[in-house]
């Protein structure tokens, strides 16, 4: 057990709760500058537009917690969405069959990433950069680089609401809840954290590092596939640019939400959710205040840089900082 610290430290407080403070500050700023921003409509819109990436980021979190990375999630989302759309629109196959195929295919892409990174020991950045290009290439080949529209009969699902709440918000929160339970309440989740904390200690404790890390990639692929379904329904089509740069947005969400790129730290709830909402709030807020189109990239880049810098600083003072956790996770809980 970690001994609790009773002396208040501003530095520790900022590192632990800093991302919540950032979110609050951003909300306050846009609420003051854009009169209609602080409203139920805007809140729903923020969660709605963040929904696909929240799911994708929750899968990616497992890989990053093992101190690895997967920069192919955007391409996994694109390829599975493209195949699903082709099956429905061009081949006229039943929607459930297309959905199942998308999910199976995205798992297989995760298997492939796991094989390259964990079994063949290829550097995760290089391996998933390769698969990022390859998966997108296959998608472009299959679609002939064209837009594939979804039938009008199912497009409405992307906007379907229960009361004032979009269905995809409820769905993404449900997925996050499941992912949180997997992360904090299952052996697999605890082992992922243990591997990220210290791989050699994890192995000494008997954790099958390769197997767990491999499955982290499969989970990541599956989540990219689920995110792809929501993404396609929202826009009503799949284009060759669908999912482009999702990997970096998802990584930014994770870092803002306190998932360390150095592995072993972070939470799905509230971490990933808060990270995702923070980015979506910024994007939506800029829309609301009618910001110059040139401001968007600058703000996005600035937020990502500050988050990465904070993550780096946090790692340097790690022993003193308690990360907000779903449940306390220690190496001793790993088995």
């Amino acid at each position, binding site marked *: 057990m970690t001994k609790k610290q009773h002396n208040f430290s501003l530095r520790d407080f900022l590192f632990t709760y800093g991302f919540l403070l950032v979110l609050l500050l951003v909300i306050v700023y846009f609420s003051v500058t854009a009169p209609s921003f602080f409203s139920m409509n805007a809140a729903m819109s923020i969660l709605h537009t963040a929904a696909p990436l929240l799911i994708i980021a929750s899968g990616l979190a497992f890989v990053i917690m093992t101190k690895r990375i997967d920069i192919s999630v955007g391409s996994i989302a694109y390829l599975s969405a493209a195949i699903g759309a082709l099956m429905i629109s061009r081949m006229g196959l039943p929607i459930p069959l297309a959905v199942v195929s998308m999910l199976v295919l995205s798992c297989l892409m995760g298997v492939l990433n796991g094989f390259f990174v964990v079994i063949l020991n290829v550097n995760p950045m290089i391996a998933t950069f390769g698969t990022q290009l390859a998966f997108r290439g296959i998608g472009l080949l299959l679609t002939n680089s064209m837009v594939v*529209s*979804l039938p009008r009969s199912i497009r409405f699902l992307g906007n379907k609401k229960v009361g004032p709440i979009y269905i995809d918000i409820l769905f993404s929160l449900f997925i996050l809840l499941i992912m949180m339970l997997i992360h904090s309440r299952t052996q697999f989740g605890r082992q992922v954290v243990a591997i990220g904390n210290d791989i050699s200690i994890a192995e000494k404790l008997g954790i099958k590092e390769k197997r767990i890390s491999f499955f982290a990639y499969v989970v990541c692929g599956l989540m990219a596939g689920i995110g792809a379904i929501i*993404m396609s329904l929202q826009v009503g*089509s799949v284009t060759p*640019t669908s999912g482009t740069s999702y990997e970096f947005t998802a990584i930014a969400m994770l870092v803002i939400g306190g998932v360390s790129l150095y592995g072993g730290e972070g939470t799905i709830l509230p971490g990933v959710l808060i990270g995702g909402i923070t980015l979506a709030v910024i994007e939506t807020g800029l829309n609301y205040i009618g910001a110059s*189109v040139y401001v968007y990239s600058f703000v996005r880049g600035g937020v990502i840089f500050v988050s990465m810098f904070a993550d780096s600083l946090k790692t340097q003072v790690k022993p003193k900082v308690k990360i907000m956790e779903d449940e306390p996770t220690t190496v001793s809980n790993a088995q």
Partner: protein
Amino acid sequence: MKKKILVTLLLVVVLSMLAAFAPAGEEKTVKVCVSWNEKVHSLIQAWQDYMEMYAKELEPTTGIKYEWIVNVANGDANLQNNNIQDCINQKVDYIVARAQDSGTIGASIKAAEEAGIPFITFDRASTSGDPTAHVGEDGYLQARSTAEAFAKLLKDNGIEGKCIELQGDLLDNTAVLRHKAWAEVEKELGAWTTVAEVPTEWKPEKFYQGALNALQANPDANCMYVASDFAFSSVENALSAVDKDAPTGDPKHIWIAADDINPMGYEAMVNGIIDVGTTWEAYSVSVLLVDTLNKMVNGEPYEKVNLISGRLATPENVQTLEYLYSTDPKYAD
């Protein structure tokens, strides 16, 4: 004597036949590298198909056989420069490129010039180098044609416009020109006020999110300018989310001007969702490119800038426009 006349006549007939059936000149094979920045929608495939088809049609009369070397940069300006360098290394005769970034294509133009290869910018003009020629449509005139017709439409219907502008990727010169034309007509004719400018980077997700946010932030908005309708399903979904996906005549209708008349835009215009737009021509521009290439190959004088104007489309005339690639089932989304 009779025999001589007969032989002479026979000779004349044979020579005439040879003259009639012989090719105009010796057949030339010309290698053209076509560098697409990306293939985000079917218009690009249509351009490619039409230029190959038209060149093939002309082959018997011109004696010019084109060999097309096509590459796609998937939206990456650096990759496009590399692709073009590959073409230079292969010693192609001409390079045709649709720039990903008008501001960086100049490096490729310079490299081609140094290798003695004529360079034609296609569709998107360069802002960073001087190509041998440019072929395309005038993005400024296109957007201006749409904006002027839209202003008239709003005035005719007594609408004081409060518009949302969904802009393209501002690295793309065409997107910049469309924004410029929209802003100028707004200032000149005063038919609307732009209440929100939304950047989309030509990404469907951003069309959707941006349109949805702008519609919610500006509930009194009654009109919209969509810089390109290639991913119009995103805009329709956003309209649907705020219960404003309604055709002309319906009280919920948002007046929409959208350029290009791509397949999704065509469908939306036929359904009365889009009120006015100007075509981004596939066939005419491809024809213009091949004609320009032919002139270059034959050493004939050619125009340095070759631009055509799009045609104004409305729900009333869109189904009657000829050579509209959106109506070709081959390019249906």
